């Protein structure tokens, strides 16, 4: 951001150059304006009944299938993000669409194509919201299925109406750059901490449904963990003391989210990557995928009951 705009009168400041979209770049924004915006986001979260709601599958079969299907979906979304050069926040936004859709509509067991089609529609919609350059629908390659553009468009419409056109969802990425300098006194010159926090958020999102925790809580917990993985309840409260009262954040939730993030990291570090990164329908693979529920879910401890 232009240094001269830093002390600007409050107004809606937006940037349109591409450099601002690099997530590893730390931006400092006009303080009061940004604070107000962050506060309004947190207020929005607390009024929303999107978070912490219970998923509706109650038989084990469906739950297991959906759990695996979601993990495959996340892997497809993340690798397609890389191929198409989207930002991380776009992939995460896509995942929030996916999770919200799944919480409102039922997908029958084994309807693998429906999950894939849903992923494509969600990623395309997220790109339309977040990216400056949006590829045409033919660039989204599903494994084993070839969806025509008109089919994807129909699915886009279905997602839009199911989510009641509320496409500007809050994600942890809305907060990251705001929280980091408030928690870490030293400047993150090379963007190391931001990258680390982003990694944590992405790993977390593979295991945990995006509707389970408030995005602000995930953002602050991942920033805390990126800065220090040895925080106790007390030291953490000390670190976020000012912040949490300013934004009325719930310390309890931040603490449990911090521990959950840490647990996921520990598990990840102890798991051979060949298993943990298994993806069944990666976009680059050409083998038609067969779902095998029994073996295909390496990450067992999923906090949300899918």
């Amino acid at each position, binding site marked *: 951001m232009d240094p001269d705009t830093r002390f600007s009168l409050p107004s*809606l400041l937006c940037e349109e150059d591409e450099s601002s979209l690099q997530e590893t770049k730390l931006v400092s924004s006009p303080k009061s304006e940004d604070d107000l915006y962050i506060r309004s986001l947190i207020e929005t979260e607390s009024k929303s009944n999107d978070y912490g709601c219970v998923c509706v599958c109650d038989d084990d079969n469906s739950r297991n299938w959906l759990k695996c299907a979601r993990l495959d979906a996340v892997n497809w979304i993340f690798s397609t993000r890389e191929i198409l050069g989207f930002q991380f926040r776009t992939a995460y936004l896509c995942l929030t669409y996916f999770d919200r859709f799944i919480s409102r509509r039922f997908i*029958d067991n084994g309807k693998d194509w429906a999950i894939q089609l849903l992923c494509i529609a969600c990623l395309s919609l997220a790109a339309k919201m977040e990216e400056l350059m949006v590829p045409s629908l033919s660039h989204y390659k599903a494994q084993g299925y070839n969806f025509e553009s008109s089919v994807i468009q129909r699915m886009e419409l279905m997602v839009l109406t199911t989510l009641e056109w*509320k496409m500007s969802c809050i994600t942890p990425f809305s907060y990251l750059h705001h929280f980091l300098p408030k928690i870490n006194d030293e400047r993150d010159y090379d963007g190391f901490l931001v990258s680390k926090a982003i990694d944590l958020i992405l790993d977390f999102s593979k295991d945990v449904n995006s509707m389970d925790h408030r995005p602000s809580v995930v953002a602050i917990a991942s920033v805390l963990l990126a800065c220090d993985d040895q925080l106790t309840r007390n030291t953490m409260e000390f670190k976020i003391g000012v912040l949490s009262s300013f934004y009325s954040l719930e310390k309890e939730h931040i603490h449990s989210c911090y521990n959950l993030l840490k647990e996921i990291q520990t598990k990840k570090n102890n798991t051979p990557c060949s298993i943990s990164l298994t993806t069944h329908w990666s976009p680059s693979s050409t083998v038609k995928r067969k779902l095998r529920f029994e073996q295909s879910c390496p990450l067992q401890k999923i906090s949300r009951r899918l």
Partner: protein
Amino acid sequence: MSNRGNSSGSGSNSNISSSNRPEWLQQYDLIGKIGEGTYGLVFLAKIKSNRSKSIAIKKFKQSKDGDGVSPTAIREIMLLREISHDNVVKLVNVHINHIDMSLYLAFDYAEHDLYEIIRHHRDKVNQAINQYTVKSILWQLLNGLNYLHSNWIMHRDLKPSNILVMGDGEEQGVVKIADFGLARIYQAPLKPLFDNGVVVTIWYRAPELLLGGKHYTSAVDMWAVGCIFAELLTLKPLFQGQEVKATPNPFQLDQLDKIFKVLGHPTVEKWPTLAHLPHWQTDQQHIQGHKYDSPGLYSVVHLSPKNPAYDLLSKMLEYDPRKRITAAQALEHEYFRMEPLPGRNALVPPQPGEKIVNYPTRPVDTNTDFEGTTSLQPAQQASGNVSGGMGPHVMPTRNVPRPMHMVGMQRMQQQSMAAYNLASQAINPANIPMQRGVAAQPHQQQQQQQLRRKDGMGMPGYPQQKSRRF
């Protein structure tokens, strides 16, 4: 995949030809086409069940084959779904035509817009708009804009044709801000206006944008309001620059020239960030070399520098966006506290004896059908001398398309929400036979409906603060 809702599907493979229209369309009587723009066509329709209600239906042009749902449509619907204010156009329904996947937005219809009102005064009655009307329009425009800015939304395309005024009825004379095709939420990525593939008039564009500023703020909307204010006073666009259509980044020197001629040359002393604006740096010769004998804004708008109206206008046309007055501040300005006080019905002054101007109704082209095809019905003109259609070609002074939103007198929130649900029932993405949901237990349905009902009524989760501290 299956539905959780239990209402019956709409638009299930019915034909869209005029003889056999989809269900949603059958609730309307189509009167004709009233506008055309980059994003599609606008039609005037009546609701069959209540012929007194007029609705403007905006049909989005099909996006390019293979691009899916247009990002502009998504943004506009998303924003309009979440905002609700007296001075912002009211979206009453979203319809999806499932055959060709086209999108239709239904709005309350507004008979007038500032473009037509100004034109009528300039070309027909040859008389200035009365003080009360100017002040009431400006106040309501600022009131709507303050609401948008408080909710972190920038409009970015304010111009007279996007400012609507309600005709006869309960909301007569109420101003409505319309056309959110370019509006943005704070933090959303910004495409440069010039490569949005959109015709945006440059007459109302703020100098920081014209000089290539990449970090712009809600102050760009206030500049546009200033230009519109001046136009209401003088009946002429304040800065009528010649647009350069070159791509990819046209430098609008003529527009800047027009501004500098009236407001004088901007200086780094008065506007410190000026030095960082791309065109200011690269086009030194053109811009900075020029000397302007500024005649002064007051002589252009025929106002005394001591007049509060002039004071407010000059604060809206402040070069430095950081010093430019905000909508919230403008609403508190002395101008609005002196007689005549602004009122809700901008068209009819409260004082008896004041002359009431009868503005012409919008011309309707009854030749064009919803699909944009021309039918064989004879043309009817509601009024005016427009002969067939309302494209820019019949209005030589307008260099921008017709406004895309019209507003009527109606409130039908309940109905509209029902229709959103309805719309979500009928899509079968792959045209693959789908099973109805096995797991849609009654309590879930109930939960879902409750959720929807809540969503529909109060739009939870949207920042509702009335005004942000500026």
